[in-house]
């Protein structure tokens, strides 16, 4: 029984959703890094759902930023999302660190999936023009 689970949801075509629920800090950051690694390894886009997170600190931001960098290097879409019910503390760390330019945070699952699929479009497909 995990109080603060991190799960992979692979029900979406070509995208892995990483569900982060509960409190996350330096203690669970290594698990998050593993799950993100796993999600990136699938080859499709990666969406991180922070809607169910009740706490996150800078160790978690660090894990997300590293994953985002690796996704970009691999040409993979990577998007984080929350929704209107997100815990104030989670929204707060995203707001005050001004990370949004480097870590795209969108509202809701649908927008997140759309955004990641857009980035995901292999630029190679458009090149023979």
């Amino acid at each position, binding site marked *: 029984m995990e109080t603060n689970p991190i799960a992979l949801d692979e029900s979406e075509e070509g995208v892995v959703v990483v569900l982060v629920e509960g*409190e996350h800090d330096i*203690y669970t950051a290594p698990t998050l890094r593993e799950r993100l690694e796993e999600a990136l390894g699938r080859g499709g886009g990666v969406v991180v759902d922070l809607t169910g997170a009740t706490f996150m*600190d*800078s160790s978690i*931001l*660090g894990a997300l930023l590293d994953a985002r960098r690796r996704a970009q290097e691999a040409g993979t879409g990577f998007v984080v999302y929350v929704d209107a019910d997100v815990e104030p*503390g989670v929204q707060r760390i995203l707001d*005050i660190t*001004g990370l949004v330019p*480097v870590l795209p945070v969108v509202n809701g699952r649908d927008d997140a999936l759309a955004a990641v699929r857009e980035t995901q479009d292999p630029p190679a497909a458009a090149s023979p023009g």
Partner: protein
Amino acid sequence: MIERPEVRLSMPARAEGVGVVRQALAGMADALAIDPGILADMKMAVTEACTNVVVHAYTDREDEGASGTLDVDLLADEAALTVAVRDEGSGLDSPGGKPALGLGLPLIAALSDEFEVRDRDGDGGTEVLMRFLYTREQDPAEAHPIGETGWEPPVDPE
């Protein structure tokens, strides 16, 4: 170190202790009926200070298994909650482990109404003192914006 703390916590400086401190703080905030937004800031700032103890304070120790201590004092007065996070480590200016994002101290500054980081006299080690008003006149994140600490988000490779 707070002279007569209300609650004193002491534990080995390990990652799993940070959540214990955070939840004890939440228990104290419950009794004080602290505003949820301010509690969220307290939790984050105190977490960052404890994480620094876990990550940086004892990196000079030969024995990986044996960790030093993480001590936390909580004191509520009429206007504010004061938290002291203490270690007996190598101090701020020591090599102190590989820097992470470098967001810890800037976040503490942005989320508390007053803070101080200092080397402890005597035994050595570091102490971070943070004060959180129950009623704010200004958002501390506006008074001490993270952007003005010199911290910048890692550059986008594009």
